[in-house]
């Protein structure tokens, strides 16, 4: 469906993308996870034809994405990171203005606008100026402004920046419903929770390079350990640190100990030993590794450093 081949993009002072290749299938919810400045937005701008690469090519379906190819834009919806709306106009006026650019018949456009406004709970506020909207409402409007022409591919560039948890969940639900309807979605974020929740496949990008890609489980499997064990920090567990070390590496944090299991770790053996030493089960919590840990493992930095 979407094929990104050996893309490189250079800005005067920085290499934004360096030989990036990705294949994204139809109806896939694909995540692009990386810290700020990793090259996510540049890749999105290349995908929509706003920027041109120095090297490589991008095709969507059987069409190549170029700055001059205006036809392909009928198949792409783009939700920019910024709130690309006219604050002084009403929600409806904004949607009409952007929708008309896609040559939609008046009646169809009007129906789509009502439908989309209803879908994101903004129909009642359709005639209010956007400047009176909350951040979450603006974000929702920002998304549906990209969907009026009913594109097959939706590109979302950090669409939940600055949004409260409730609105964020509403946006997630809406995007999931779009994906369920058959839209291919590419979603960039630096929140691994978002990527994990939404995306069936994720690529991790850093310094303009794809450093890992796959499903969430496939990525986690790249870590040299499966699970970590969080151990409550108290007199008993501190006394038994040597026992814990028999099972792997113990990292002491302010309020807990973290046990990274070593080779041949078996959970049943671990808990038998814990019981023998008189430690309580409730002091131990199994922790599934996260993409954050994978990123830390791969780059030595945290996602939000």
């Amino acid at each position, binding site marked *: 469906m979407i094929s990104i081949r050996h893309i490189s993009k250079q800005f005067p002072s920085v290499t934004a993308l360096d030989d990036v290749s990705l294949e994204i299938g139809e109806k896939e919810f694909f995540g692009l996870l990386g810290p700020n400045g990793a090259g996510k937005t540049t890749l999105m701008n290349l995908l929509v034809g706003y920027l041109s690469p120095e090297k490589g090519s991008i095709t969507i379906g059987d069409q190549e994405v170029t700055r001059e190819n205006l036809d392909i834009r009928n198949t792409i919806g783009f939700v*920019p990171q*910024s709130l690309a709306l*006219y604050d002084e106009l009403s929600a409806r006026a904004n949607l009409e203005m*952007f929708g008309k650019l896609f040559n939609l018949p008046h009646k169809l456009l009007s129906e789509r606008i009502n439908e989309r406004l209803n879908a994101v709970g903004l129909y009642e506020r359709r005639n209010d100026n956007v400047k009176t909207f909350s951040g979450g409402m603006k974000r929702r409007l920002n998304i549906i402004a990209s969907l009026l022409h009913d594109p097959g591919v939706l590109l979302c560039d950090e669409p939940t920046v600055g949004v409260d948890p409730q609105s964020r969940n509403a946006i997630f639900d809406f995007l999931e419903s779009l994906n369920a309807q058959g839209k291919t979605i590419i979603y960039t974020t630096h929140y691994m929770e978002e990527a994990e929740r939404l995306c069936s496949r994720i690529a991790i990008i850093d310094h303009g390079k794809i450093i890992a890609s796959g499903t969430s489980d496939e990525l986690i499997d790249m870590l040299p350990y499966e699970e970590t064990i969080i151990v409550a920090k108290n007199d008993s567990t501190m006394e038994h640190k040597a026992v814990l070390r028999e099972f792997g590496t113990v990292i002491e944090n302010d309020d807990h100990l973290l046990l990274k299991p070593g080779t041949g770790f078996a959970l049943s053996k671990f808990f038998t030993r814990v019981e023998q030493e008189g430690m309580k089960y409730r002091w131990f919590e199994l922790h599934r590794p996260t993409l954050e840990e994978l990123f830390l493992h791969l780059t030595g930095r945290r996602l939000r450093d």
Partner: protein
Amino acid sequence: MKQVLRLFNNSYRIFFNDRVAVMLTFIVPMVLMYLFGAIFGSADSGPDRMPIAVLNQSNSPVAQQVVATLDTMKAFRVIKTYKDKQGRQVAFDSVTIKRFAQTGGAAAAVVLPPDAFTDTSLGLKMKFYYDPKNEIEFQVVQGLIKQVAYNQIPAIINQSMQRQSEKYLGTKSGQAFNRGIASLVSKYFHVDTSLIMNPSKAMANWMNTSTSSVQDSSKKGGTNFFENMVKIESQQVVGEQLKNPWATRSVGGWAMTFLLFTITASSASLFDEKKSGVMLRLLVSPVSRVHILWSKYFFNMSLGIIQLFFMFFVGWVMFDVDVFSNVVNLLLIILAASVACTSFGMLLAAFAQTRQQAQGLGTLLILSMSAVGGAWFPTSFMPPTIQSISKLTFVYWSMDGFLEVLWRGSGIAAIAPHLLILFGMGSVISAVSVWGFKRGKVFE
């Protein structure tokens, strides 16, 4: 107190980081001060080489002296011929010189008729045709012409008295009387006798020193005396039928200044669209950069046409400016001026890095161009270099076009050069803008 000082320092840091604020605080006033100073402040301020048509039909030395004086004045560029239909230079006659002033060939015309100063004259006669298309310019020209004429008074008195003495005493006795008077004046006032007996030499000598005394004496109540000695028959040759000459003259200048501000702000809105992300949204729809630029161009141009016409319409409603008797030609000039202004706005947007830069640079250029282009005061008052620069600005050609249409009631032939120049400037500036947009920051 330390906190006050810290905040004080912060204010300066913020101020100097804001290039627009710095530009508006220091550079814009500096440029305007230079322009105003050049026009009104210097010792020799006043018009510089203003074209003035002169026809001398008299053989009198006094009339010749008037022409010679005008010839040597820095304020004027004396024109004595015009180009006929065959392109030949032809000397003015009493009809063609008036028409020359009417059609804007010169700011004024001076005619010294055959009887300007005859053997029997008691005073100097002259005709003054003027086109007060610019009030300040007209007042100054009129003042200077009068000054030149009044400067002939000593010669006129001298020659008149000699003639009268010869008439009543006879030639020999008259000359003897004159010599006697001359020697008495020479004895008691220590003046060279040859100067008293030679009027032209005396006049030339006197003119070098007497300008201020003539002005002063006229202020002291000598005006009637001078006006009897110098009879200037003035005739307004253009605009005499206008109901409100002041408004007719000034409405174009103000309209142009405000139009430039409007267009600059509108063009700079490209930066707002870029900042808000709307530009990106537009560019990921089936819209190209060229579409965006053309839409902006047409919007600004139409806004310019509406605003200019609105301002002339207000001039009509409030000040009786006759907008409608030559409305087609007025609309043509409005269209051409809007094209040029729009191109200017696009040029700023193409080369500025930010909205603030576009606005700051725009303010500087608008105020300078308005001043240099003659929107606020006559270009003829400016130093020759600035007068030359003035003609490179579309404000000058727009202003002149508006005056042609509203003041002179000119037709398409008269405004054709203005239209050509304005459309030409618009095209060139637009081409440069397109080049700038390809390299600029707006679409980056």
